[in-house]
């Protein structure tokens, strides 16, 4: 399994990147899901895979029975999964909100709509002609 996991991680990553670049914000978000998954898997592989025994200590003993799986990447990934989920929820809400405001989930059209409304960068009046006695 040493070789197949990196390949799977790469494949998921590639798919995620490709989806990230699509025009539909929904596909972009699905791309983000895949990328998080791929990175978690990568992290998991980097912690070395050796055994199927989880890092638990049996009642009565002080240390886990070797061999046991590396607990550190597991802790990292566990929070990463939850944070990834938080990011996903936020991205979805953002996409939904921008659809409600601008009527589109098209990445390219967001630009045009943004220009219509407010995003043009105009220097504040105070900075123009930066002062004067």
């Amino acid at each position, binding site marked *: 399994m040493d070789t197949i996991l990196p390949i799977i991680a790469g494949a998921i990553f590639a798919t995620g990147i490709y989806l990230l670049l699509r025009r539909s914000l929904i596909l972009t978000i699905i791309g983000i899901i895949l990328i998080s998954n791929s990175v978690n898997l990568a992290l998991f592989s980097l912690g070395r895979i050796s055994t199927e025994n989880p890092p*638990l200590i049996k*009642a009565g003993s002080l240390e886990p029975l070797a061999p046991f799986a590396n607990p550190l990447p597991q802790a990292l990934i*566990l929070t990463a999964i*939850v944070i990834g989920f*938080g990011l996903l*929820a936020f991205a*979805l*809400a953002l996409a*939904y909100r921008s659809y409600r405001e601008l009527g589109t989930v098209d990445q390219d059209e967001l630009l045009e709509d943004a220009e219509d409304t407010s995003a043009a960068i105009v220097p504040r009046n105070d900075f123009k002609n930066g002062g004067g006695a």
Partner: protein
Amino acid sequence: MMKSLILHTATRLMIGVLVLFSLFLFFRGHDEPGGGFIGGLVGAGAFTLYAIAFGTEATRKVLRIHPITLISVGLLSLVVSGLIPMFVAEPFLTGKWLFIEWGAIDTKLSTPLLFDIGVYLCVVGFIVTVIFSLEEEG
């Protein structure tokens, strides 16, 4: 909100079990697979299921507490669990333990437990907030 008799009946039966299960996962978390994150996800799943079956209004009534309050209380628990050791001049978030022996079953109270409660509440509050917000748009 879905109008399905099977879903409604099943949900009514399931919700209690799910919440109990989430608490079970939470409390055994320090020694067996489980803990604040996992327990919180299961608990949130229970309320999500309820919201899908009966709508958010009914779920709010079952939950009684506003989900953002859950987040706040959760964050507060995290901070408090960190501050407690500082009263005995130890660094922020040092684990402090209190062993109570009842004879048959021993209980251990600890700041990591309080910390995990904070994690649990934040996770539940977060997911329920999101689900409610999106559901209520429908």
